[in-house]
């Protein structure tokens, strides 16, 4: 009754964007703020 989901390690979004030459532009338009995930209200303000 125990259920195992295998996880695969793949390319990150950062690597995908970098490979397509889009990382710099993306980071300009979307300033990276890791805190926003946890404090959405504070980040929005």
């Amino acid at each position, binding site marked *: *009754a*125990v*259920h*195992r*989901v*295998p*996880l*695969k*390690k*793949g*390319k*990150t*979004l*950062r*690597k*995908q*964007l970098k490979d*397509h030459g*889009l990382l710099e532009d*993306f980071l300009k*338009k*979307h*300033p*990276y*703020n*890791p*805190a*926003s*995930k*946890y*404090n*959405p209200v*504070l*980040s929005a303000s």
Partner: protein
Amino acid sequence: ASSEPMENYMDTSYYGTISIGTPAQDFTVIFDTGSSNLWVPSVYCTSSACSNHKRFNPSESSTYVGTNETVYIAYGTGSMSGILGYDTVTVSSIAVQNQIFGLSETEPGSFFYYCPFDGILGLAFPSISSSGATPVFDNMMDQDLVPLDLFSVYLSKNGESGSFVLFGGIDSSYTTNGIYWIPLSAETYWQITMDKVTLGEKSVGCYLTCQAIVDTGTSLLAVPQGTYDRIIRDLGVNSDGEISCDDISSLPDITFHIHDHTFSLSGSAYVLEEDGSCSLGIQSLGTPTELGEQWILGDVFIREYYVIFDRSNNKVGLSPLS
């Protein structure tokens, strides 16, 4: 409205497969202990950004039940919006009936095209779930689909296979070094209290205790700005985080003092090597807010410990992998 700031998933690299509907429609998702909602793209999203992804088609599922409730997924300056619906969600061989999830309909930006995953499956607590949506694991518990109200995560260190999420149990072959149980400090994220953090013998932060979130949906170790500045200064790292791969073996351990135990990361754990260059697997989380000093123990930490997320006792179990 649901808010999933997707830029946080830029460095996430562990993905699994779930299916939704009858017959099953498969999706690649991040199993994210740092959020609580489930969402996937839907056929209502017709922009080119969605064209590169699996899209859920409600009309092809005999068990789908729609709603008029909307869901909003924000990422920086862009966003996705959609609706909430109910269907059977199958994770491994567990079929969760009437699971609420978000079906994205619009995607005005373009970067989603390059996202290596289709959606996100949140494994944190219902208290932080947007739109009051019941998280997948809560339904697994309510529907008696798991023998124990816990799940565990193993992330392999370098290989591309071997990682897993185990629902309803603990794999004893990963706990031979013992399990250290830490009580949660909040039932929101998988949040615990740390007593201090040292780099080598020296304290680098968390001087008056602090909070840490164990988050499989964050790749790096995220630390307060002041601590980040002290770490890169003490390690002699450039501000961009680049470090010589030859220096890894001489780097001091980072040690987390939690609930009367110490949990260490060696240099080889917190330095990431890619294409022959090395960088620090640590990022700044900005200045502490009124919520206090916050740390995020992401995949860099989780790769070193088999982690048990115990909902019945509200504890996190850590078992050293080496």
